[in-house]
């Protein structure tokens, strides 16, 4: 809102489009087309190189696509806000997100650390004996859910129901009203299930998430809200994309096989090269002039990690998948996007890479570190258990989003070993 009497603008910032600024060959509908679901990179490269802050009128958004611009938005909480996933549900006041409560953070981290390797070994051990499995489904999609079930300490029956409802709920926070209806039902069912568990565990001495929040007097709604606002997608998508890229580059797979230290680097390069969460939305807290444009109060700024991670101003030969790339930060750049003078890949739509930038010593590990380690552990288990793993003959895996705004990942990756 501009200052001034009556609350209306008392100045103007001129913003007419000039012929040289338009992209005659670019149709705005490409941003909602199947092309964007399958391979967004050519479209995004066009925006990044020609209109770094593209005004998408049909989608009522400003697309920001250059690395420095995207990161500048992500770290700028004063000017941009993130909206809750409960907002598209119309449930802003519904339940309390406990995701940043210290006990909850500690509980999740401890349970995940303990469960990561055993769960990964169990999953890989359960693969059919015929030496063939769909790694995208049976490992990448499954692993985060098994971990969540472990964190919540659910029975087999509850676990299966939880998994379906959880996925339905996450999907319902998108733009599709049919999915939203299904998501609302799933949330109510989850809340009822958790109410039952919370009542029975309130006096337990357990260390699972349900018991921990029960001790805080949380309701089923609170736990559902916490899970909704959380994110399994980078874990799922990162793991699937990592193995998609490794199977597409057998030489790189050999390198990783011979030096396990490189699994982490392969993962970091995966997040840069094929960001599973292609973009994250921010909203202007007030009118702000950035990127040569006036962004009005409330404007949607769509930060494209996919475009920024392939920005040739920052990464040399950005379309190449190079494990251990010299121009990519190889550790957690706490509190910013650069460390050691190097840029990190942008992968987490949740803000700065770490919510806990430095001291104190006993700070909980960041989501960045937890997610990275979970992926690396699972990948190491695969290399241990299936040393001869390779892409199935004739398989042509690809990355795609199932719907606009959803995970860009590999949904089918048949492998042999």
């Amino acid at each position, binding site marked *: *809102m501009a200052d001034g*009497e*009556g*609350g*209306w*603008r008392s100045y*103007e*910032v*001129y*913003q*007419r*489009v*000039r*012929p040289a600024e*338009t992209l*005659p060959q670019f149709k*705005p509908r490409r941003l909602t087309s199947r092309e964007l*679901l399958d391979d967004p990179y050519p479209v995004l490269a066009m925006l990044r190189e020609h209109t770094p802050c593209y*005004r998408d*009128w*049909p*989608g*009522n958004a400003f697309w920001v696509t250059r690395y420095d611009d995207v990161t500048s938005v992500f770290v700028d909480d004063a000017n941009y806000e993130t909206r809750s996933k409960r*907002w*598209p549900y*119309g449930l802003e006041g519904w339940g309390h997100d406990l995701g940043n409560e210290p006990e909850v953070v500690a509980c999740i981290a401890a349970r995940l650390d303990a469960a990561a390797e055993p*769960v990964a070994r*169990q*999953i890989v051990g*359960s693969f059919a004996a015929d030496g063939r499995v769909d790694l995208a*489904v*049976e490992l990448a*999609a*499954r692993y985060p859910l*098994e971990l969540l*079930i*472990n964190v919540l300490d*659910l*029975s*087999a029956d509850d*676990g299966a129901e939880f*998994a*379906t409802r959880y*996925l339905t709920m996450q999907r319902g926070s*998108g*733009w*599709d*009203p*049919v999915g939203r*209806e299904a998501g609302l*039902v799933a949330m109510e069912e989850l809340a009822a299930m958790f109410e039952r568990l919370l009542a029975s565990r309130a006096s337990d001495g357990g260390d699972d998430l349900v018991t921990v929040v029960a001790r805080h007097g949380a309701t089923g709604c609170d736990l559902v809200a916490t899970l909704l606002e959380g994110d399994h997608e980078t874990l799922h998508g990162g793991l699937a994309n990592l193995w998609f890229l490794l199977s597409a580059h057998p030489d790189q797979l050999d390198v990783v096989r011979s030096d396990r230290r490189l699994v982490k680097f392969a993962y970091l390069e995966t997040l840069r090269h094929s960001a599973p969460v292609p973009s994250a939305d921010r*909203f202007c807290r007030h*009118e702000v002039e950035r990127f040569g444009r*006036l962004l*009005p*109060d*409330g*404007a949607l700024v769509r930060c494209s990690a996919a475009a920024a991670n392939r920005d040739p101003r920052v990464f040399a030969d950005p379309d190449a998948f190079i494990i251990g790339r010299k121009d990519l930060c190889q550790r957690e750049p706490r509190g910013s996007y650069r460390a050691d003078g190097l840029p990190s890949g942008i992968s987490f739509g949740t803000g700065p890479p770490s919510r806990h930038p430095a001291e104190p010593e006993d700070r909980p590990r960041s989501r960045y570190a937890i997610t990275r380690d979970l992926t690396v552990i699972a990948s190491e288990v695969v290399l241990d258990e299936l040393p001869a793993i390779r892409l199935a003959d004739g398989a042509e895996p690809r990355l795609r989003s*199932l719907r*606009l705004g959803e995970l860009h990942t590999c949904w089918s990756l048949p492998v042999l070993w």
Partner: protein
Amino acid sequence: MTLTCPFRELLAPAVGLDDDRVAGKPDFPLMPVGQAVDMGHSRDGTPLVDPRIFDSAEFARNPYPYYRILRDHHPVFHDALHNCYWVTRYDDVTACYLDEEGFNTIPKGMSSGVLGNTQLELSGIEHRRRRNVYGRHLVGKALDRRMPIIERLAAEMIGGWMDGTAPEGSVVVDESTGERSVELGRAFANEFPIRVVGQVLGFPDDARADFFYWYSSMMNGLGGSDTAHVGVEARQHLEDFVEALVAERRAHPIYLYDEAGDPIGRDIISELCLATVDGDQLSTEEVTSNIALVVGGGGETTRGAILNLWYLLLQHPEQYAAVLADDALWDAAFHEMLRVASSIGGQPRHNTWDLELHGVRVPAGSLMHMVDFSANHDDRVFADPERFDIFRPNLYTGKIIRSGVRKDGRASHLAFGVGPHLCPGAWISHQETVIGARVLAQAVDHIRIDVERMPKDIDGTSLAPIGLGAIRTLWLRIGARG
């Protein structure tokens, strides 16, 4: 490990792995007019709206059943795909238009990219000062003095149908019957409004050739459409032409005179050049932006009004007969046409503050589309809204109301908007359309739609519906008045 194999059976339905319906842009089937595609229901039976429908061909030709669903079940619809809210009921739309502080015009709104900074994006005193620079030339006595010129222009153009001076291909003579087929767009409606606008602006006659290109391209380029660059180029072309004109008028303002030789006033370009706002002269950029707005707004909308009026009226011959019998009914026909099918669908607004409307919470600064198309078809105000009826008792058809929307127990349509941003060209557009219609009706006999030459609906026989906006072409069959 908890989940038993195979995991894919659990995953696929929950994430829509095999659901092709949701990927990309779907092809919604074309429905009979008045029926909506089934887009799903909530648990309590409320019909859902798939926001991709707004981009579909189906919606462009058959929007009203969807607006009805929105009005009845989602009066404030959060469209997360287009990041906006659709406000569709008459009372809500008018209340928002009249609340200038709570619902701000959008800085850098849909039109400014092409047209430039115009009063569409201004509010409050800033808006009023600029609007008044030329708004007063389009109403009242100034307008009355222009009427004979408007009438002469109409008579000249319609006369051309008979003497062979109409644009090539727009008039076809049937040798066997002596009847003519006339494409009303090319033969009249495309050019008539902008000849009036050109006259009002004080454009030299030699600019006429480019007028249609300017306004149709600019209007097609609004809202970041696929043809946005065409609009931007046309805007630049207009500017290149106008810039020299503006420089000249700053030095030598031109006065317009009516046929009797009495001064009407300065032309609008001269007015804009000489006007001061807050002690400042308008910049050339601001002048050309306002010219672009007048060219775009004065051309495209009135063109659509003329075509839609004849399309609707001739599909209701008994109402046309009534109009012929009573000249005063042209005004009612004009307003009812705008209620049924106006050229402009609505205006965007930003809500200044967080608000809750019909149970929907809208964060401050959200894009809220005020859907005039829907409000005009709201059966809370207009009974049986899809029917074209110039005798409608609930529609106000009198002198345009400058503030408010109701008078004499009747409600006004919203085709010209409401409140402070009420179209300044409403009065002149009304006169153009009605005078043109009177001249046409008097000039020809036995006028009807040339059904053979017109686009058909999905059944292949009935005439295509108007849908959103205005029809593009209208072939009429006429007998010359002997």
